[in-house]
Structures are given as C-alpha cells and as structure tokens.
C-alpha cells in the first residue's frame, strides 16, 4: 500500500503538491489565528497592564486619625502591607498626610471672631506636585512652604515663623513652630483634590467634626513628610499609594496580585489594629485587570470567527481539490475495484495518503504560522501596539495546526472513497435534492445565526459564544451558496443574448459557461472566497468607523481638558492660544432630575457647552445626516451676552444709599465673562449704603473680561419696614478701542426664595467721564429673619425661563419625557427649570447614558437670575485644535487632564487589546484571495486537461488557436465574473446584516453609538479588480498552455 502511495505520489506530484498547498494554507491560517488569540492576546494583556494609567493600577491605603506616637509605625506597616500585596511586582510608594487642625495666631486672621485654624501636610514628592513661586523647598525640620493663596490670605512671606497651637486632644499635643521658607503653586492633576481644602488654601465656615462651630480653615503648611511623621502631631488623614511596575507582568502574577489587593482591606485592618480609626484599601487594579481581560475576550471572539471563516474557506478549497483528484483518479479507482480491491482497502490507501499529506502540511504549517504571526506583529497595527514578537512555536499552536490538518485530511479521505460521477453526468435527482437540501440548511443556519446575533443582549458579554464565532462563516457560506444559485439563471440569460452574435467565439464561450454542468465546489469556493475577502475588508472599515464613532462620542469633542481645579479668568485665553481651536468651558457631571437620582450607580449626566458653536465643539454621530448644529439648534440663546467691558486691574467703585436710619450693607458679587464664555465671580467687601464710594477689589484679573451680572444681597439689623436702596457701580472706561457697553439688555430681578422682599427692582446704564455707571435700585423689605435673602440681581440678560435641553433617548425612555416636557435639573444645590426641545440618540461624552445636553450660557443665566452667580465648569472643550501636538500644548498648561478624540480613537483601534482584530482581518483577505486563485487554477487546469481532445477538435473545425484561447478565456471569464459579483454581493449582504452586530464595545456590550455598516467602495473595487485580474491572468496562463498542447497528438490517442 505504501509503495502504491509512493509511486502515485511520484507520478502525480503536481496534484499532491496542490493538495498539500491547500491543507498547508488552511493549517497555517488556523495556527496564526491560534497564536493571535493566545500568544498575542497574552502579550496584549501584559502590554495593556504595563501601559495602564497609574490610577488604574495604583493601590492606595487611606488611614484616618493616627495619634502622633503611632504615626511612624502605622506609616511603616502600611507601606509594608501595600508593597507585599503587590508582590512579586516591584512597587514604589508615595505618601501624604495631613494633621488635625491647630489654632493659628489671631493676628494672622484679624477682623473675625470665627476661630482661625490651620493644618500641616507632608508630601513625599512635593516638587513634583507644586511649582515653587518664591523661596525654597523645605530642607530642615520646621521648614514649611505655603500655597500661594494661603500665603496671600495670611500675608505670610518666606522667613516668617508661625506657631500652630496645641491640639484639642487628650492628652494635649504641644504646639508646633514652623518657618515659612517658600510659596508654591499647586499643579493640576497631582492629587490636590485629596487635600482637605482641595488646594483652595482656605475655607470659611469649615466643619471637620472636631469643633462644634464652623471655623475658618487655612493651609496646608507643607512640611517634609518624614518631619511630619516624627513631629508627634495627630494625623487626621494619611494615604500611602503604591505604584506597581508591571513592565514584566504575566497573567498569573497579575491575578495573584488582584486577589491580594482585594483581600488587603481585611489584612491591613488586622495589622493596624487600634492604632487607626479607619483603614481602607482602594485600588482599581482588580477592575482594570477584569476589564482588560474582557476586552481580550471580545477581540478573541472576532479572531476566532475569522479563523472559522478561514477554516471553511480552506475546507471548500480542499473539497474542490479532492473532487478533482478523485475525478482524475477515477479510472485507477475503477481498475483497482475491478481487480478485487475492497472498499476498505481503498479507504486505507486514501487514509494513508491523506495522513501523510496532513503530517507534511502540519510540519510545514507550524513554522509557517509562527513566521506569519511574527511577521504580522511587525506590521501595523500590532507593531504600533507594542505586540511585536519573534517567531516561536507553542503547544496550543501545534495542536491547532495538527488538528486542523487532520480534519482537512479527513475531508480528503471522504472525497477519495466517495463514488465519482462519470464525466458528463448531470447529477441524479437524489444528488440534486441533496444539494438543494444542503443549500437550504445553510440558509436556515445563516438565518438562525443572524437572528441570534440580532437578538443578542446589548449588555456586556465579553466571552466568545458559538453564535458570534460561527455566524460570519455561516452567513457567508449561505450567501455564497445562494449566490451560486443565482449565477446559473444569469448565465442562461446571457446565453440567449450571445446567440445573436454572428461569430462563434462569443456564443460558444457563453454556452460553455452556461450549459456545461457546473462545478459546485469551484463555484462555491470562488463565491465564498470573494465574499470573505470583501466582507473582511468591509468589516475592517466598519469596525474602525465604529471605534472612531465610539471614541468621538466618548470624548464628546476633539480635545477635552478636564479640570483639576476651579478655572480662573483668563484660562480660556491660555487654552485658546495653546490649541488654536474653538474653545468653550464645559459642564459634565452627574445631576438629579427633579427628585430622581437615576438608577443604581448610574446617575443622570448633565453636559453643557456653548451650543452656538455645536458644530465645531460637539463630536459623535447623531442620526442620519444630522449634525450637532441641527440637534442643538434649539438650545442656544438667541442673543449673546456682551455686558460691560472691564479693563484688567481696573478699580470698580460702588456707592449706595438707603432711605431711613437703618444702617444697611450690601456684599456685592460680580460675574465676569471672558472671550471664551467662562464666567468667574468675585465677591467684594460688605459695603455700607451710606453714600460713600467704596473701591472693590480688582475683579478683572485678566484682559478681555466683561461684567455680565451683579448680585447685591442686602443685610440689615432686624427691623421691619420697606427701605428704598439705590446702588451705583462705576466701571472705568475700557478706552477708545472698545466700547464699554454695547446694548446689552440689562435687567433687574429679585432673587428667590422670597422675591417679594425686594420689590420694584430697576437697573439703568449711563456713561460718564469716569466710565459706565450701572444704577440699581429697589425697595427692600427688612422684616423677617436677619439671614433672610434680600438679593437684588442685575444681569445683562433677561430671565431665560426654562432652559431648553436635548435629552438622550435613554433619558426620554426612563423619565418618560418627550419634546415639550418641563422638568428641572439640579446643579450643586440650585434647581434649574428645563424644557425638553429635542430627543437625541445619545449625548456627547455620555454615551448610552441618561443624559441632558444644554447650553452652558443658558444654564448660567437661569442660575444668575436666582442669585447664584457660581459658574459650574468641569472642563475645557476644544473643537478643531490646530496641529497634532495641540494635546501636548494643552497638557503643558497644567490645568488638568487632556483627552483627545484622536488619542481615544487610536486607543480603541490600535491599542494592544484590540490590535489583534484588524491584524486577523488583514490575514483573511489575502488568504481568501490566495485560496480563490489556487482554486481557479486547479479547476481550470483539470477542466482543460479533461477537455484537451475537445479543444484539439475545435482546431479541426477551423478555429485558430487564438480563437480557441478567446473561447476558453471567455468561458471562464463568463463564469468567474458573475461568481465574483455574486460573492461580492454576498459579502456586502453579510457586511450589512452581520458586521455591525459583531462589533462590540470594550466590555463586550453593544457599542454606543450603534455600529453602522460601511462598504469602502474604492477599496472593494480595487480588491475585486485585483481578484478578477488575478483570476483572468491565471486562467489565461493555463489556457495558453493547454491550447498550445492541444495538437494532433490528442487526436491520435483520442478514442
């Protein structure tokens, strides 16, 4: 038997080489995909964890109230506990601690009876978190630096010594003397939000639970951490953060560490015992590892789907090759049967030969898949994602390659022992029924697969399931089978038309294409390969577009600078200069809708920007052809607020009078607006309404500010009766270049909650030689509680009424709101009435959330007329920033964290956890093209060899070789063209119905916005042109060779 196989292999080596080639291609594809879902996925997990943001992997231990004597041991034990939890990864730790409040010398905070308190803080890496403004860093025990604002408020300069009084503790802790050696400015994004006063430097009416009454708190006095720990002061809060070095991470260690971190709370509590009142371990590391793992599974599911598609393609190619082989060996098989070879012996021979082919293919495919995989990792996007690896063989790859080769060999064996229909057989009724049944089953499976995908949950489901893995292959195979059914009638139609020609070549070619018994396997392979290649290309585009859409909607704009601290007037100009884009302050935070807080852990979001520039600022797909300019058209105010120009540093003068003898005071609050729309307010001192001019502090701290509102809370002794008050605010002239007032509609109102306390509010504007004068007048009812609100508000705009908003579809669904619904949202503690004017699929920067989009100016106006001049801002949003380094320039401002749409898109498309998907897609396209060409060459060669005598006889009819070539080429082109077209149609159909369903988000949930199919016409046209040209070139080469061989020799040996 071995001798027969060996001799036959020598005689039929080209045929066996073709079989071996197909099996090797399939096994290589399988091996490469296996490496993508194992080796690359593992590497991706390691790279992703190594690249994770510190906040995602850091472990922070918070401890509360540590008595001075225990502080050194608690700090040491905490560091030990946290670093041991992160073992075996090396970790670096940083710490910060703040003491409880201590009394400040009264002379530092004069003019108030409220106690002034201060606290000390120690930070490990102070120079990295602050910028030295003046003086030096602490070097010796007792050295301290102050924040700029604290130093300003307490009028402390380097060189001053300050005694911080004894703690109110048992036993008492002695006072501490510190020497101010420098003044620093806090840097954004360096953890200052965790400072007890959030780096504000002071807080009036501060309550920390140790005092019955609120106090005025100042600080921190920043000292060396070791100095603080050894000072004996009671530490109010201490946090130690450990940052693990995950550059050499592996899955097992990561899982161990995640487990340790999750259990660290309990262990730490045991270690610290009663030395602390509170100990808590906080870390996103376990969550990060889980989300990384989820994303890995999401990618693996699609790579597996591509592997299955490659497997189906290979099997189809092998069925074709096997059938052709069996056809060529039909005579030999018949002879062996005639001489008494049993079916079992035939099967044994076929199995032996197929086994040898599988063994050789596996031996070739193992290193080939390693090399191909390594080559892929050296190309974008895997290369860019840092997933480059050297060729290596792993066990699971060998298993997959060998298993795949054996399965394919089994297909060969089955085909070898299957009875071969005689040449020219048109197929029995039973065979036709079987084929129809198979086609029907394919279509049914494809439909079921699509339905399963369509009906899949939109919730997170990262794990690969059978439907998601098999659906593309089922749909494409079903589509190709159906397309094959369509091709024949099309060819018959062409056949009828072709016979109108006068010559022979065209009608003969079309007749050959239309009437010759069709080679189902060849047709299916051509259709399926073309469908797979076009689908691969389109799915790649669809996936990339979806990731881009998700990134755009997730960021909400082109560049978002999320603020770490409250923005200052003039920051907008800085951002604008750095990015050269359309800049707007933005609000992006949780809110409540009426009394509704949202579902658990999913609070409603309120997003507000300058919607007059929605087109430039807002990103993320809306519906159909609509842009954000259309969707936000109803949100923007009809007129812009201009207000009064206030020159930088100009002194504003307030003068007020009141009727009667009751002494009244107003504490003016002024709202300034800069060119980007940012509004900042400043509060002046209490001004008695006694007719004297009072200069207000310089509220215009930057150029280009305009006064847009003034709030005048009137306070008086508790007497009753109405009092007429008149207040003038003189704004110095802005100079000749700029008009101070430009026709704003100044309006006076009385702020709630009891507007009737201020009646007849009025405001007028006039210009004098000294500047613009704003005259405000009202009648104030003095009765009632002494802290009752009596606030006269003058604004450069009228009361806007309910703020028009666009709500997300989910908002509309969950709240039951529709266009016209009137609701209210709460910002801080101020409720703002809103009216729904638009329902949009989702709101920028809040994908899929219950969210509200509003105009920030309108929100501010609605708050101002209630007397709330605070302007809530969480970020700067920048549209169309100039240049690729705009993000770097914005980061360099140290205002907060910068996120860009481009960077997010790059993360979603080329990040290590996702790069495997486009990598695999780029594998399937050439693999499909290669198998298609191989199938075409095999089929045409065998077809023409079988018809060699027929071709020679055409010469006998007087047809020239050129004519015969034209007929044969036309015949195969006539079959290939509709098959390729049908394959492309199947690919397009699969792209339309299944590609969007295969795209999932990071968590495995349905992406937001929903993926839309994209058919890249130029790329698809180029691919089809290449496939067609490749096929025709291959056919032309085979035809030329065969026609050259079609000579009299064939006629001599012909029957």
């Amino acid at each position: 038997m071995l001798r027969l196989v060996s001799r036959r292999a020598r005689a039929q080596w080209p045929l066996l080489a073709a079989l071996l080639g197909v099996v090797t291609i399939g096994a290589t594809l399988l091996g490469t995909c296996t490496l993508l879902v194992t080796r690359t996925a593992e590497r991706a997990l390691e790279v992703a964890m190594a690249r994770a943001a510190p906040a995602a992997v850091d472990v922070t231990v918070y401890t509360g109230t540590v008595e001075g004597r225990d502080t050194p041991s608690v700090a040491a034990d905490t560091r030990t506990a946290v670093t041991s939890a992160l073992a075996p990864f090396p970790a670096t730790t940083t710490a910060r601690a703040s003491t409880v409040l201590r009394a400040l010398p009264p002379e530092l905070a004069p003019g108030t009876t409220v106690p002034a308190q201060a606290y000390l803080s120690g930070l490990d890496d102070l120079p990295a978190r602050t910028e030295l403004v003046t003086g030096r860093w602490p070097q010796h025990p007792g050295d301290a630096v102050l924040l700029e604002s604290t130093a300003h408020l307490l009028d402390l300069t380097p060189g001053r010594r300050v005694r911080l009084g004894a703690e109110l503790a048992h036993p008492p802790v002695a006072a501490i003397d510190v020497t101010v050696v420098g003044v620093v400015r806090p840097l954004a994004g360096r953890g200052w939000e965790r400072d007890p006063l959030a780096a504000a430097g002071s807080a009036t009416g501060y309550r920390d639970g140790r005092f019955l009454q609120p106090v005025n708190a100042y600080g921190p006095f920043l000292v060396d951490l070791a100095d603080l720990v050894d000072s004996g002061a009671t530490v109010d809060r201490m946090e130690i953060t450990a940052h693990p070095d995950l550059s050499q991470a592996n899955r097992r260690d990561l899982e161990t560490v995640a487990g340790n971190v999750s259990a660290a709370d309990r262990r730490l509590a045991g270690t610290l015992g009663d030395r602390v009142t509170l100990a808590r371990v906080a870390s996103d590391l376990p969550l990060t590892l889980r989300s990384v793992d989820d994303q890995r599974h999401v990618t693996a599911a699609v790579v597996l789907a591509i592997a299955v598609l490659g497997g189906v393609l290979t099997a189809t190619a092998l069925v074709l090759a096997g059938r052709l082989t069996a056809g060529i060996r039909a005579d030999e098989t018949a002879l062996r049967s005639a001489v008494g070879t049993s079916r079992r012996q035939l099967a044994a021979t076929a199995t032996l030969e197929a086994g040898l082919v599988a063994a050789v293919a596996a031996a070739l495919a193992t290193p080939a898949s390693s090399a191909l995989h390594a080559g892929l990792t050296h190309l974008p996007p895997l290369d860019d994602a840092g997933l480059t690896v050297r060729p290596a063989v792993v066990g699971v790859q060998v298993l997959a390659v060998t298993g795949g080769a054996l399965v394919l060999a089994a297909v060969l064996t089955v085909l070898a022992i299957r009875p071969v229909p005689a040449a020219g057989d048109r197929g029995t009724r039973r065979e036709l029924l079987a084929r129809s049944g198979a086609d029907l089953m394919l279509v049914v499976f494809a439909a079921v697969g699509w339905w399963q995908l369509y009906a899949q949950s939109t919730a997170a489901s990262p794990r690969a399931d059978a439907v998601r893995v098999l659906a593309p292959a089922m749909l494409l195979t079903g589509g190709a089978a159906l397309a094959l059914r369509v091709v024949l009638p099309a060819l018959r139609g062409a056949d009828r038309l072709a016979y109108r020609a006068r010559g022979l070549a065209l009608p003969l070619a079309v007749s050959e294409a239309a009437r010759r018994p069709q080679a189902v396997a060849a047709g299916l392979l051509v259709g399926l390969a073309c469908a797979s290649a076009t689908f691969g290309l389109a799915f790649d585009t669809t996936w990339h577009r979806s990731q881009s859409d998700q990134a755009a909607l997730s960021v909400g704009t082109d560049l978002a600078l999320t603020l770490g601290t409250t923005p200052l007037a003039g920051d907008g100009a800085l951002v604008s200069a750095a990015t050269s884009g359309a800049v707007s302050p933005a609000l992006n935070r949780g809110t409540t809708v009426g009394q509704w807080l949202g579902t658990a852990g999913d609070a409603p979001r309120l997003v507000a920007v300058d919607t007059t520039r929605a087109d430039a600022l807002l990103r993320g797909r809306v519906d159909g052809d609509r842009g954000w300019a259309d969707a936000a058209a109803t949100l923007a105010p009809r007129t812009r607020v201009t207000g009064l120009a206030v020159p930088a540093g100009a002194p504003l003068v307030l003068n007020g009078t009141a009727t009667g003898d009751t002494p009244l005071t107003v504490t003016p609050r002024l709202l300034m607006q800069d060119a980007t729309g940012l509004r900042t307010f400043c509060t002046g001192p209490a001004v008695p309404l006694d007719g004297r001019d009072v200069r207000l502090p310089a509220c215009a701290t930057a150029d280009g500010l305009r006064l847009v509102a003034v709030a005048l809370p009137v306070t008086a002794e508790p007497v009753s009766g109405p009092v007429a008050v008149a207040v003038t605010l003189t704004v110095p002239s802005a100079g000749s270049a700029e008009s101070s007032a430009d026709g704003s509609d100044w309006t006076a109102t009385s702020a709630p909650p009891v507007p009737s306390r201020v009646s007849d509010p009025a405001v007028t504007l006039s210009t004098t030689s000294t500047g613009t004068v704003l005259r405000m007048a009202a009648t104030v009812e003095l009765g009632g509680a002494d802290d009752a609100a009596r606030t006269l508000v003058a604004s450069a705009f009228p009361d806007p009424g309910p703020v028009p908003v666009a709500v997300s579809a989910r908002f509309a669904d969950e709240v039951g709101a529709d266009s016209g619904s009137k609701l209210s949202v709460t910002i801080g503690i101020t409720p703002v009435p809103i009216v729904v004017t638009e329902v949009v699929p989702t709101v920028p920067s809040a994908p899929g959330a219950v969210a509200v989009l509003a105009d920030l100016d309108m929100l501010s106006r609605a708050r101002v007329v209630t007397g709330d001049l605070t302007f809530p801002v969480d970020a700067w949003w920048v549209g169309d920033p100039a240049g690729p380094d705009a993000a770097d320039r914005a980061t360099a401002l140290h205002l907060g964290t910068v996120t860009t749409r481009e960077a997010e898109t790059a993360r979603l498309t080329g990040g290590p956890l996702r790069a495997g998907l486009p990598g695999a897609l780029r594998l399937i396209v050439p693999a499909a093209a290669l198998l298609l060409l191989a199938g075409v060459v095999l089929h045409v060669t065998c077809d023409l060899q079988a018809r060699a005598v027929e071709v020679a006889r055409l010469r006998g009819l007087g047809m020239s070789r050129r004519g015969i070539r034209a007929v044969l080429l036309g015949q195969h082109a006539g079959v290939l063209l509709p098959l390729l077209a049908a394959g492309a149609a199947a690919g397009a159909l699969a792209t339309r119905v299944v590609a969007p369903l295969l795209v999932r988000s990071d968590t495995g949930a349905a992406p937001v916005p929903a993926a839309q199919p994209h058919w890249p016409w130029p790329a698809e046209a180029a691919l089809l042109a290449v496939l067609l040209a490749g096929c025709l070139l291959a056919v032309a080469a085979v035809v030329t060779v065969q026609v050259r061989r079609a000579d009299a020799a064939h006629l001599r040996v012909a029957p």
Partner: protein
Amino acid sequence: MNGEPLLRVRGVHRRFRTGPSVVHALRGVSFDVTAGSMVALVGRSGSGKTTLLNVIGGLDRPDAGSVHVDGTDVTTLDEDGLSRLRREKVSYVFQSFGLIPVLSATENVAAPLRLARMAPAERERRVELLLDLVGLADHAGQRPAELSGGQQQRVAIARALAASPRLLLADEPTGQLDAETGLSVMALLRGIAESEGVTVVVSTHDAVMMALADRVIRIHDGHLDEQAAGQPHAPMPDAE
C-alpha cells in the same frame, strides 16, 4: 474517376519521439486523390492512418514531404493559413463524433458557418438543409448527449459539410457504431460525396466501407500498399 488530383501527397515522413525511442509513423507516403472520389484508408492500429489524415488536414506537420490540397501546399501554411484551409476546404469527421457537447445539433452544424461569419438567415437555411439531408430535421434542438451514436455521427457529417469543403477527412467514422448504423453512415458519406462533389478520404477497417470506396489505400507501418477498389479484402486484425 479521372481528372486533376484534389489531394496530392508526396514523400511525407512523420516521426514521433516517445522517450528515448523514435516511432516512424509515416515513411515517405505519396499518393494522389482525384476530386469527387472517395478513398478508403485502411491499416492496422498504429499503422499511421490518423497521422496521415492529421497531416493532410494541417493538424500536424510532416517532418518531410508535401501535401497539396486543391493546389495549396498545406505544409507551407502558417497557423492562420491552416485554420483558413480547414474552414474553407477541409473538414473532419471524427470517430467519436467530436461534437461540442454543450451545443444542440443545429448549433453544432452552424459552428463552421459562424466561423465563416455567414449571414444569420443564410446560415439558418443551410443548417436546416443539412440536417434534413442527414435525416435529423426532427432532432435539431437536441444536444449530443440526447442523440444516439448514429445520430451524433450524422450531425458530425452535416457539420463537416456545412462550409462546403472540397475535402472531407473521416477518421474511423463508424468505429463506435454498430454494423447497421455504420452502414447507413457510410452510405450517407458515399451519397454526399457523389451529390455534393466532395472528395472523401476515410480511414476505416470496415469491409463494407472499403467496398463503397472508389479506391482503397492500405497503410502498413508507415508505408502505402495501394489496392484497387471493389477487390475482396482480408478482415483487419484489429481496429484502431
């Protein structure tokens, strides 16, 4: 039959190399065939009959010698000239009929007329006439697989006559037919040769065919051994 020879074969040699050995298929074959005659070419299998017909029809080129068909030296024609020769002057009838399987009887017969780019109306008339001539007018739309062997060979003869050739070469035309069908096919050939004035060279081992021929040329191991028509023939030892 007397007159100018339509076919003149002079000193034709043809050798084939089969691995290390050389087979001499034709060794200086020379003969003439006058126009309108029917010549039977007989010989054992491998004697060179098919090679000689292929050389005459220009499907094969001799190593030496010349072949003149209707005054044209076939051996000097290039590919296009040979194709033109076969379209206009020489046609073939093959043992296995040589019909194009995907075409109907009508379309097969029309094939040479399409090659000659005959006008459709004239082509249809000619095809109808020929199918009627060979008695297959009722089977015009059927494909070869739907016809019997005899019917297929009749279609092949009709196709061979379609372009009104001067010379018809038939290679064992009855080889795959039973005796009765073979006889009717041969009678048809004979009748056509007479009615259409076509010169017929037919290779055969059929004694009846030899009897119908005007002249019998026996070929043996590449040499000719001519025999007068109508003389008794020894049965051939095997068929080609």
